[in-house]
């Protein structure tokens, strides 16, 4: 894992001081809320329905046990004993006081954490693959490059007042676990003639105008990707639309110019920037890469697992993935207990996970964009002990990628922008499908719920997407099918007229029952069935007149 040196530490410490000063000026009415709001947003502090919400960055989703313990401490001391892990691999606290925020940030800084650029029209937290450094099929660990991007984008003087927010994701496998094609810039680490470099997508995004990114370069050498990103950002900063907030994301610029013209402009800008030696020297790459070196694996670790406990075996099959190192495995901790709040973890759970990471996983934890946590390096021989401890804390639900592993944004229970609640819908769907045999029969199915068109819950990328809308002051929900945020990225299409809360749960069930009828066999995923047969059978099932049978 990356550790701060004196320079990194000095940056976050200075930021805490600066924010303390800004908060003091606001509390003394020396600046207005209008002037202060962008400053607090630059530090991840939003005003939500009930209080301030603080978004803490988890760079590329990687945390140490010490950091996780601090997150638990913060939940206890400054919040109400819990936090919410988000689709952006960050954590949000819901009950923060402005007057305490500087102290909170100072405590975070002691464990090399911050909330810098977790909001505002700047380059946001860099996201990545939760299996980075452990996946068997990766070209190299993508996180050193994400870390270098983090540093380059932090306090970037030219790009702190962009037309709109800007999100970058970095992966290193063909399997996309980070939804890179739905980011402003998506980078995939690849090797060409022995040299590491990136395939570059630009212009993906969700929100009210979802779009899938375009490949603008098949290969940029890794030693030049920063200046290349600089060129993309400059073209965007200069020409991205500022006349209409809903058209301000880079995806609209790429769309309006056309990918070819946009690419031409980026290349022209890069021709000017590249000679200015903006890229970090090889020594800096080497320094950062070294910090992400593999932990010292136990080469004698046995490669077999005792599956005699059937409950454990269920978890093993669903939540544990292959590791590049024989004798090791990747374990996903589900934050989706049936009936729970997707992504929420209590301070006690955070402490326990920190302990388990120290005992079993080289003190490292990952946050996934589907709001779960991962222990990336677990000896297979320790899996049973790990599972037993997780099970005791309600953290071993064996439902990864199943119908109850639902992504849900905070929605109208917390969010000031929401039209409708997301969490109760997730809970009701999960309760409806609580039976594990039924979940297994249905197989991989990604349900994603957003409480408004901003799409924080990735509903456009859901195999089944649910969007909360406002219908004359009442909560209502729209159902979409066929989205994917993976390497086969696609945008979900609206099925038909919307529903009430109870109605949408029923509709999801009808869709799933229809899938079970039309799928070619138990091996065909919902998404593949949908792609093969189209929307009609599902429409028929959901909108059939009452009383009609299919």
């Amino acid at each position, binding site marked *: 894992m990356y550790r701060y040196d004196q320079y990194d530490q000095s940056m976050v410490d200075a930021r805490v001081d600066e924010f303390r000063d800004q908060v003091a000026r606001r509390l003394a009415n020396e600046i207005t809320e209008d002037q202060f709001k962008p400053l607090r947003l630059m530090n991840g502090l939003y005003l939500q329905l009930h209080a301030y919400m603080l978004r803490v960055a988890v760079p590329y989703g990687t945390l140490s046990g010490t950091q996780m313990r601090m997150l638990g401490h913060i939940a206890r001391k400054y919040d109400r004993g819990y936090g919410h892990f988000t689709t952006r691999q960050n954590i949000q606290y819901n009950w923060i006081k402005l007057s305490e925020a500087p102290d909170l940030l100072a405590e975070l800084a002691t464990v090399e954490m911050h909330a810098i650029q977790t*909001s505002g029209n700047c380059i946001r937290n860099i996201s990545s693959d939760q299996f980075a450094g452990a996946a068997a099929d990766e070209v190299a660990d993508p996180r050193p490059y994400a870390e270098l991007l983090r540093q380059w984008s932090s306090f970037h*003087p030219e790009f702190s007042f962009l037309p709109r927010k800007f999100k970058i994701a970095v992966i290193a496998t063909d399997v996309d676990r980070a939804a890179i094609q739905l980011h402003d810039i998506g980078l995939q680490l690849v090797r060409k003639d022995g040299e590491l470099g990136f395939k570059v997508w630009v212009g993906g995004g969700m929100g009210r105008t979802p779009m899938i990114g375009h490949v603008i370069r098949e290969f940029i050498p890794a030693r030049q990707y920063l200046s290349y990103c600089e060129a993309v950002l400059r073209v965007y900063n200069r020409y991205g639309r500022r006349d209409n907030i809903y058209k301000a994301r880079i995806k609209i610029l790429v769309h309006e110019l056309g990918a070819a013209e946009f690419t031409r402009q980026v290349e022209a800008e890069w021709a000017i920037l590249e000679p200015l030696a903006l890229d970090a020297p090889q020594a800096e790459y080497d320094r950062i890469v070294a910090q992400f070196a593999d932990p010292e694996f136990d080469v004698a670790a046995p490669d077999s697992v005792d599956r005699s406990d059937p409950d454990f075996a269920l978890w093993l099959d669903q939540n544990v993935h292959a590791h590049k190192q024989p004798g090791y495995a990747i374990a996903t901790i589900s934050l989706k207990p049936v009936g729970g709040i997707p992504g929420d973890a209590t301070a006690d759970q955070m402490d326990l996970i920190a302990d388990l990471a120290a005992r079993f996983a080289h003190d490292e934890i990952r946050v996934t964009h589907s709001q779960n946590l991962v222990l990336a390096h677990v000896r297979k021989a320790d899996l049973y002990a790990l599972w037993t401890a997780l099970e005791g804390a309600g953290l071993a639900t064996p439902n990864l990628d199943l119908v109850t592993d639902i992504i849900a944004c905070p929605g109208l229970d917390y969010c000031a922008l929401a039209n409708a609640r997301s969490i109760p819908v997730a809970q009701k769907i999960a309760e409806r499908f609580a039976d594990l045999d039924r979940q297994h029969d249905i197989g991989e199915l990604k349900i994603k719920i957003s409480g408004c068109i901003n799409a924080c819950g990735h509903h456009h990328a859901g195999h089944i997407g649910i969007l909360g809308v406002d219908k004359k002051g009442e909560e209502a929900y729209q159902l979409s099918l066929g989205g994917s945020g993976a390497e086969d990225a696609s945008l979900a299409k609206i099925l038909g007229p919307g529903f009430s809360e109870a109605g949408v749960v029923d509709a999801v069930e009808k869709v799933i029952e229809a899938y079970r009828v039309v799928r070619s066999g138990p091996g065909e995923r919902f998404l593949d069935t949908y792609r093969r047969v189209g929307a009609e059978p599902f429409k028929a099932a959901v909108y059939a007149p009452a009383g009609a049978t299919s």
Partner: protein
Amino acid sequence: MTDVQDQSPVANAAPVPETATPVLSFRDTPLYDGPVVALADFGATSNTAAVRLDPGDDARALVPHLGGLRLIEVSFPKYRDGRGYSSARILREAGYTGELRAAGDVLLDQVAFMRRVGFDSFAPAKPLDPARVDAALSRYEYVYQKAADGRPPVWALRHG
């Protein structure tokens, strides 16, 4: 009045009216105080020594003329419109060494970024407290990336 959080528009405000607020300078040479023409009018009067760039103007249009210019004023009608930062850095990258002034909605918390992209004088619509400006400019001892101010990024210090 819903809080639109980070959704508020970032541009399209009316230009800030001219003010008599003193210019804050980081140059050793006296400030230019002759007339300033808009970029659109510049071509016709190419003997002018001072040009104003508005957010939508292409800074590169001035590149052939940089030698004859003493002042380029970049206007910030609204501080959240960040195009002027790119304009400034582009001019410095192209070798401009004359006065580069940020004018308009220039706020304390933006001055440090503005210095980094190459501005060396400020004409804020509302006066800035010079002591606070100094504090803001000295707050961050290090920088992470190259810009137009010549400060070495931390990678240069690390591998000095």
